């Protein structure tokens, strides 16, 4: 029961979408529309589950006084800091309007924190370039050369440095060529490989051969 019904649901829903692709007419188009609209709602609940689980884990951490538990209080405070104004003091459905409490927290707390978190990677990319990128083999040298041409070709200074070369052979044009031909060929090979992998995995899931996502009993 606990594993069979989810497998049946997966098979019915999966086949409906596949059949609808080939036969986009009644009743499959209606059924597909219905299932899609349900999915939008289930997805929202799935994300809610993530947020609620974070609260649960944080509360557990506090109650058990686990390592770094005071930071779990800050996590919960952060959640409430945006959720309470969002629900109570931001004009209901117009919660995102400029000037609402929700918008204020988005602009001045969420935005700088998230932006800086990802911007930090710039430092580590530079550090890795210095320490890890070595032209030890032919393949590694190719990688470095491609990176060199693309990095220089994608900024104006590249064309300044290669201005002595004839038109068509300057850095930006070489970068264009690398991106449009050898790079695209490599990406395409990866893309086709992944697509075939997805097709086979999808079929395994729909047919119930792959069921690891259901976990143990």
């Amino acid at each position: 029961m606990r594993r069979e019904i989810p497998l049946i649901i997966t098979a019915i829903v999966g086949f409906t979408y596949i059949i609808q692709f080939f036969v986009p007419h009644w009743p499959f188009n209606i059924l597909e529309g219905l299932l899609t609209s349900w999915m939008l709602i289930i997805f929202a609940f799935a994300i809610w589950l993530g947020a609620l689980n974070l609260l649960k884990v944080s509360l557990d951490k506090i109650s058990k006084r686990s390592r770094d538990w005071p930071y779990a209080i800050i996590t919960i405070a952060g959640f409430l800091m945006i959720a309470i104004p969002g629900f109570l003091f931001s004009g209901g459905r117009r919660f995102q309007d400029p000037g609402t409490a929700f918008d204020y927290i988005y602009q001045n707390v969420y935005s700088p924190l998230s932006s800086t978190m990802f911007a930090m990677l710039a430092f580590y990319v530079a550090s890795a370039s210095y320490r890890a990128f070595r032209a030890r083999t032919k393949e590694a040298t190719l990688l470095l050369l491609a990176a060199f041409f693309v990095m220089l070709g994608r900024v104006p200074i590249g064309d300044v440095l290669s201005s002595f070369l004839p038109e068509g052979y300057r850095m930006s044009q070489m970068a264009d060529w690398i991106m449009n031909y050898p790079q695209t060929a490599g990406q395409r090979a990866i893309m086709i490989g992944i697509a075939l992998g997805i097709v086979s995995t999808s079929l395994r899931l729909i047919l119930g051969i792959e069921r690891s996502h259901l976990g143990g009993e």
Partner: protein
Amino acid sequence: METGFTFTNTLAAILTIGIISFLWRDNPLYKVCEALFVGVSAGYWFVSLWYQNLLPQLFDNLGISQLFSSGSAEDGALQVLFKQGRFDDRLFYLVAGLLGLMMLMRLIPNLGWISRWPLGFIIGTTSGLYFTTYFQSNAMAQLKSTVLPFTTVGNIVMVVGTICGLVYFYFSKEHKGALGGAAKIGTWFLMITFGASFGYTVMSRMSLLIGRFDFLFSTWLGLVK
């Protein structure tokens, strides 16, 4: 966004510097900012999903938000059913709501298994959709546009690179002889691809950092015009 040394900008600047302080070493200020970021992100999604998804898609359609007069004046499925005595196919949203609630059962240890039903639904939907679309767009369409005449160097590179790259991913036979040679050429193309991706990654990460420095030096401190 207002510029200058205001309270709001200073708050954002402190949070920015708090995260950057990790570069020196792990420290309490960074940890506070990190924990705050996680909490605020979750809260952001929580509120957004309520107002932009669950309320209009589920509660308005069913007519539940109308009961609390926070929704639109238009009748939902329940109003149509009870006032007009007519079945409205939006009532089917009850199933979606039920599946959604079953998803939340994951939070209750003994009832966690119930969440497998909506999970099965999600897996079925994405598998069914991906099965056809990935095959159409990322396999067939790509193969089709790889069939090019050998009229330019670019075309030759494209055909050879794609085929050799695919050969490299073919693991059912040992990479020896012609197959091994093709796989070797495939590796070179993949290396160029990774190199180009690395170059673009550098570009991306630096742009994000420029954005933060622009905030600190231009918006907050007003040093850059």
